[in-house]
């Protein structure tokens, strides 16, 4: 037989075909399992990555205001120009126009881009104003795009610079309050996942990854008006006396709140220049020897020892006293004077005799009690502690020099804090840059009788015959103390480099404000605290008392009949509540 069934002849063929088919089927199944089970996660993520996008939700930094809500630092969005260097490299012809518009050096830009060619993101220029940004985008240079960032502006410029501080290019606090309260002020940007369409529009919110938290507002204890006043007066005084630097601190006596703190020289926080030394807040970082301004505390220790009364007589003749191998001098021979006159005339010998008569511990207790040698608790960045050695280390000479303020060092803020103790009856409050709503009961560091006695002695300093007559404020009784301190040079105390000081309070019968004025190295003819610092104190205090509506305690009888002319009514016979309300706003007819 020649014809046979092919199937029966070649069974192996059938088996091979079936086996191949089965293998193909199995391969498909295996591939399906591979894709759907083994690589499922990876593939899904890759797919989503092609349409899901994470979008950042920017959060701005909190605003800083003064005690009345006036803004001192505000963050506002600006645009930063960035580019993809690879795309931008294709459009070299556009570079000159771009660099011209952004005020960049075009060869510098080319070098900058050449170095970063393999990156996908470089900043071209950060923080430009929105109008300029719009013009950059109008150039339509490929690879160039905008990014929104925040920039901080300080409307008061250098007036507030030392207290408010600055932030860096990423809006993180670098100095002062901006640094101290960075966590509070800083906004935390959020993020959300979205689906974008082909044109880049967001078509659906998929999930919120983190909710943006804008920075919180911070209200300071400063008063913008008093701050400006202090700045203006300090600047005038520095120019007039050719001084190197200076500080003014104004403090609320009852709470320790800082109402104004000014230093010069200063810097403009809206520009990122200014030397390191100009950026220093001298009122909290720079130490000086308090000199005669410490004498009230020496007297406080003497009064509390019970050995002295304000009218106890002390013999200061002949104006020279030897202690160990040093001599203590007065400017004049004051003869036999009482304790109050020691303060009024600022007698070094009087202060020395008191300090040597009482125990070391008594003197140390008052000095350290009012805050010398320890930070004020303001938590201001970089605050200096000051220096006050422990009383067991004092030799006789040191007791003598401490009595008139040498061998101890302090900051302007510390001195203000110490005078606030006298001003508010012996209570020490920590200095504060934030408003204090319910002042806590301060630490009692001095008896209230002692503080009251000191207040009336310090008032005599500004009266006829005292060293601080130029600190007077018309209409108010003012107390305070002058100080003129030799600066330490390369070889001991310098003969002709001084720090002129005035520390005081007003109104004297019930003090509300404490002000400290420090003028460093006055270069003119005058260098005494009573000539250089006291007039600044007087003008700042006069303005601050008026701004805060503090009633005069020694009113001057008006000599001008302005009431008739201005208001058209006789105020002497009319009480204020009976006046029609438009009298103040409208002009007199």
């Amino acid at each position, binding site marked *: 037989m020649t014809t046979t069934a092919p199937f029966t002849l070649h069974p192996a063929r059938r088996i091979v075909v079936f086996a191949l088919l089965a293998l193909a089927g199995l391969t498909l199944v295996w591939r399906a399992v591979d894709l759907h089970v083994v690589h499922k996660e990876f593939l899904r993520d890759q797919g989503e990555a092609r349409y899901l996008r994470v979008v950042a939700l920017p959060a701005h930094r909190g605003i800083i205001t003064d005690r009345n809500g006036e803004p001192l630092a505000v963050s506002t969005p600006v645009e930063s120009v960035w580019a993809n260097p690879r795309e931008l490299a294709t459009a070299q012809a556009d570079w000159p126009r771009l660099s011209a518009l952004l005020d960049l050096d075009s060869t510098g830009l080319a070098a900058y881009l050449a170095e970063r060619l393999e990156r996908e993101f470089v900043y071209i220029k950060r923080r430009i104003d929105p109008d300029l940004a719009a013009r950059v985008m109008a150039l339509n240079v490929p690879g160039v795009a905008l990014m929104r960032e925040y920039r901080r502006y300080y409307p008061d410029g250098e007036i507030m610079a030392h207290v408010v501080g600055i932030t860096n290019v990423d809006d993180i606090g670098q100095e002062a309050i901006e640094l101290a309260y960075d966590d509070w002020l800083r906004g935390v940007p959020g993020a959300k996942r979205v689906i974008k369409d082909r044109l880049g529009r*967001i078509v659906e919110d998929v999930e919120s990854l983190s909710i943006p938290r804008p920075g919180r507002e911070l209200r300071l204890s400063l008063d913008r008006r008093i701050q400006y006043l202090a700045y203006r007066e300090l600047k005038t005084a520095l120019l007039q006396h050719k001084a190197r630097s200076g500080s003014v601190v104004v403090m609320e006596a009852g709470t320790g709140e800082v109402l104004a703190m000014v230093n010069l020289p200063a810097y403009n926080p809206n520009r990122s220049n200014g030397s390191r030394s100009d950026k220093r807040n001298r009122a909290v970082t720079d130490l000086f020897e308090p000199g005669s301004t410490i004498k009230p505390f020496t007297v406080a220790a003497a009064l509390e020892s019970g050995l002295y009364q304000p009218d106890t007589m002390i013999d200061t003749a002949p104006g020279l006293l030897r202690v160990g191998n040093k001599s203590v001098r007065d400017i004049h021979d004051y003869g036999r004077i009482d304790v109050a006159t020691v303060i009024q005339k600022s007698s070094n010998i009087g202060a020395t005799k008191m300090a040597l008569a009482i125990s070391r511990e008594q003197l140390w207790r008052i000095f350290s009690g009012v805050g010398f040698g320890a930070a004020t608790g303001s938590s201001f960045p970089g605050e200096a502690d000051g220096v006050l050695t422990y009383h067991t280390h004092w030799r006789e000479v040191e007791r003598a020099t401490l009595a008139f303020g040498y061998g101890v060092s302090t900051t302007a803020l510390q001195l203000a804090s110490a005078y606030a103790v006298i001003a508010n009856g012996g209570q020490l409050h920590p200095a504060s840059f934030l408003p204090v709503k319910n002042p806590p009961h301060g630490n009692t560091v001095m008896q209230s009788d002692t503080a009251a006695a000191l207040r009336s002695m310090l008032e005599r300093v500004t009266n006829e015959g005292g060293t601080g007559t130029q600190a007077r404020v018309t*209409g108010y009784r003012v107390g305070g103390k002058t100080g003129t301190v030799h600066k330490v040079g390369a070889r001991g105390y310098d003969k002709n480099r001084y720090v002129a000081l005035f520390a005081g309070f007003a109104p004297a019968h019930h003090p509300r404000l404490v002000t400290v004025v420090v003028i460093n190295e006055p270069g003119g003819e005058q260098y005494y605290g009573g000539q250089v610092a006291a007039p600044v104190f007087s003008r700042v205090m006069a303005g601050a008392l008026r701004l805060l509506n503090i009633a005069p305690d020694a009113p001057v009888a008006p000599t001008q009949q302005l*009431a008739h002319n201005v208001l058209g009514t006789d105020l002497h016979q009319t009480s204020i509540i009976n006046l029609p309300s438009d009298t103040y706003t409208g002009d007199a007819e």
Partner: protein
Amino acid sequence: MNLQGDKLFAALLALAALASALAVVYARHEGRKLFIELQALQQVRDDMDVEWGQLQLEQSTWATHSRIDPIAREKLEMSVPAPDAIQIIKQP
């Protein structure tokens, strides 16, 4: 069950499925439209926030004392009254 009834029921289910599918498409579209609107409104809100901040800054800059003080003194010739020109009135 007769065959006729089964067929009718299947057709009804098919129609219902179609209607539900169309409703899903519609709702989804509507959702996206509303979302885009929401985005636009949020953008408006953010822009207004920004403008408010800028206005606040501008006001504060114009109102800075180092600017007002010279204007008041020199241009408007204002001055702080001397203490002896002030009459203090105590509210009875």
